[in-house]
């Protein structure tokens, strides 16, 4: 068979039945092989969108997402999405066509040094030099993408390698096994001692917990060691909804209760998180009284930005039970419950205009169980994290580390294909939506019943908020009041829609959206003056939150 057919065989060996991509000259042999393959290819309308769909697929399912692109512009269009997968540790395999080796290095048509470009945005990358290496390289790519801390892997395949003949028997090829993770419990005793002695323990939960498959171990840990908990953006949905001690998201737009409690705690148990600057605010002033227990799979995260008194490396599933010690902190639990009560969200917003936090709360209450919400980036993204509840981090896909506008719509396509039984909703902003709007064509072609909610403030709202607060209200290039008619735009892709402007329209509009069997766009107009609160200003400690009243 040809190298191109081998590629598809190996994909199938890894259980891949869904891929996202866009054809072009240097990857034509693989597209030719696809023509009669069982692997289902979803044509995106921009490679960035295709790779975001692969990310959405991976994040919603826990499997590896696969995307493909041609050489040159196809491959460069993947870069942003690979960077997104890198910073959020998403297992993705990207396959790119490359010009034939005979012309490589001559600035051939559509030749770009993709291997060189990949260095900063992938966990690892390969250039395949001979068809004899092709199968082993692809197996390795899958192993690397999933092992340890997951991440994106790129495989660049020259056209002549795709065309070369090779005798390949899939059943004889053994998938190279992912390097098993070494777990050290040597420090578990120290961790137990700290937990047992803590008067104000706090669990700080990141995306690493669910990615390790340790959701049930986490609930058991929190039950056996009652303590307040907070989550990062990526870990929303990690703590069971009935856990009374959960305080919400921490950080720049976290809840006041979460931030105030973290600042007071005397032991911070960091589980699969990395002290990102959006979480810590002023690092020197973050959780100033706390000793730190840090549990992670990536040794490079230990002591990277915050000193850990005790570090445990490896498999979260084994570590969590091993550090369970029992807590005795009734006063602290009561104090945190009081904070939670005192600083609860308020939805009694005056006026008849739609208040996005309330609308999202209504959406959250109305959406079917196990719905997946895919966000874009900006104020609406923070409102989703603040006002919607999720039963699993796989149900809340948000571009965390890279904060990439344009993520939501294509990610929703991937999520819908990964979980066809579940409702998938994109919550996008009027700015972000336009960044990958072309993917409406993908939704149209495959009649994907994705629900699209555009929170339209006619602004690049998050940037506008910073201009208002920190740049003397100089609103440079953040006005979008000449937005297109979004409902008409959707109609051009045969997607029905509806526009609402008043609070009293919300419930019936949500009902109509969920009742409609196919894709649907709900255009929600809000006041351009609404901002996200609370907010920790740059350079400030997390207890110095600005709230609406103070601003």
């Amino acid at each position, binding site marked *: 068979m040809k190298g191109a057919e081998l590629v598809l065989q190996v994909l199938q060996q890894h259980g891949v039945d869904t891929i996202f991509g866009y054809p072009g000259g240097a990857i034509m042999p693989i597209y030719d092989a696809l023509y009669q393959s069982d692997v289902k290819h979803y044509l995106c309308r921009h490679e960035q969108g295709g790779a975001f769909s692969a990310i959405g697929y991976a994040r919603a399912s826990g499997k590896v997402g696969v995307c493909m692109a041609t050489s040159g512009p196809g491959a460069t269009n993947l870069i942003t999405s690979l960077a997104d997968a890198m910073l959020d540790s998403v297992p993705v395999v990207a396959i790119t066509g490359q010009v034939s080796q005979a012309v490589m290095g001559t600035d051939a048509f559509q030749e770009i040094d993709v291997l060189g470009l990949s260095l900063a945005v992938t966990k690892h*990358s390969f250039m395949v030099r001979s068809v004899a290496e092709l199968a082993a390289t692809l197996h390795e790519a899958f192993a690397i993408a999933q092992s340890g801390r997951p991440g994106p892997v790129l495989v660049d395949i020259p056209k002549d390698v795709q065309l070369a003949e090779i005798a390949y028997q899939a059943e004889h090829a053994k998938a190279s096994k992912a390097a098993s993770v070494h777990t050290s419990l040597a420090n578990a005793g120290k961790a137990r001692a700290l937990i047992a002695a803590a008067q104000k323990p706090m669990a700080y939960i990141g995306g690493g917990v669910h990615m390790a498959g340790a959701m049930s171990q986490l609930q058991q840990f929190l039950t056996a060691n009652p303590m307040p908990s907070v989550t990062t953006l990526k870990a929303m949905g990690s703590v069971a909804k009935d856990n009374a001690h959960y305080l919400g998201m921490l950080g720049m737009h976290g809840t006041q209760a979460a931030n105030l409690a973290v600042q007071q705690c005397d032991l911070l148990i960091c589980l699969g998180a990395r002290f990102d600057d959006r979480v810590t605010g002023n690092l020197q002033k973050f959780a100033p009284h706390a000793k730190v227990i840090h549990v992670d799979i990536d*040794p*490079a995260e230990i002591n*990277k930005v915050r000193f850990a008194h005790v570090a445990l490396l490896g498999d979260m599933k084994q570590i969590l039970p091993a550090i369970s010690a029992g807590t005795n902190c009734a006063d602290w639990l009561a104090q945190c419950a009081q904070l939670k009560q005192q600083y609860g969200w308020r939805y009694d917003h005056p006026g008849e205009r739609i208040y996005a936090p309330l609308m999202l709360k209504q959406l959250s209450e109305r959406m079917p169980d196990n719905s997946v919400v895919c966000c874009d980036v900006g104020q609406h993204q923070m409102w989703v994290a603040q006002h919607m509840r999720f039963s699993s981090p796989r149900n809340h896909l948000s571009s965390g580390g890279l904060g990439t506008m344009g993520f939501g719509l294509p990610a929703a396509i991937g999520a819908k294909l990964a979980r066809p039984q579940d409702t998938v909703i994109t919550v996008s902003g009027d700015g972000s939506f336009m960044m990958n709007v072309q993917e409406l064509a993908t939704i149209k072609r495959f009649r994907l019943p994705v629900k699209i909610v555009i929170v339209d403030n006619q602004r690049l709202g998050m940037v506008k908020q910073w201009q208002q607060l920190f740049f003397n209200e100089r609103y440079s290039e953040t006005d979008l009041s000449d937005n297109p008619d979004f409902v008409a735009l959707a109609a051009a892709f045969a997607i029905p829609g509806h526009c609402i402007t008043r609070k009293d329209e919300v419930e019936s509009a949500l009902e109509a959206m969920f009742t409609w069997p196919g894709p649907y766009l709900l255009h929600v107009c809000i006041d351009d003056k609404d901002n996200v609160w609370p907010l920790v200003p740059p350079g400030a400690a997390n207890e110095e939150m600005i709230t609406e009243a103070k601003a």
Partner: protein
Amino acid sequence: MNHVLNITATNTPAVVERLLQVTRYRGYELAGLQLTPRHDAKSLNITLTVSGDKPIHLLTSQLHKLYDVQQLELAGSELAVLSA
């Protein structure tokens, strides 16, 4: 402050670029680089000397993660000598 790292790496086309890219991105300067293929030419012995004020573990822990790096040891650094 100079740090000398002795690295054994798989001899893949981009391996040196990867080492240098991580070194630069993590905020260290290149102060010396030597490489010799091992006898079978499948691996390289690399001596990477870097300078930087940050603790060297911030660099070594990232270099360790490179898939092509087989072995990495800190041969010496002024810091280590001073604190010994």
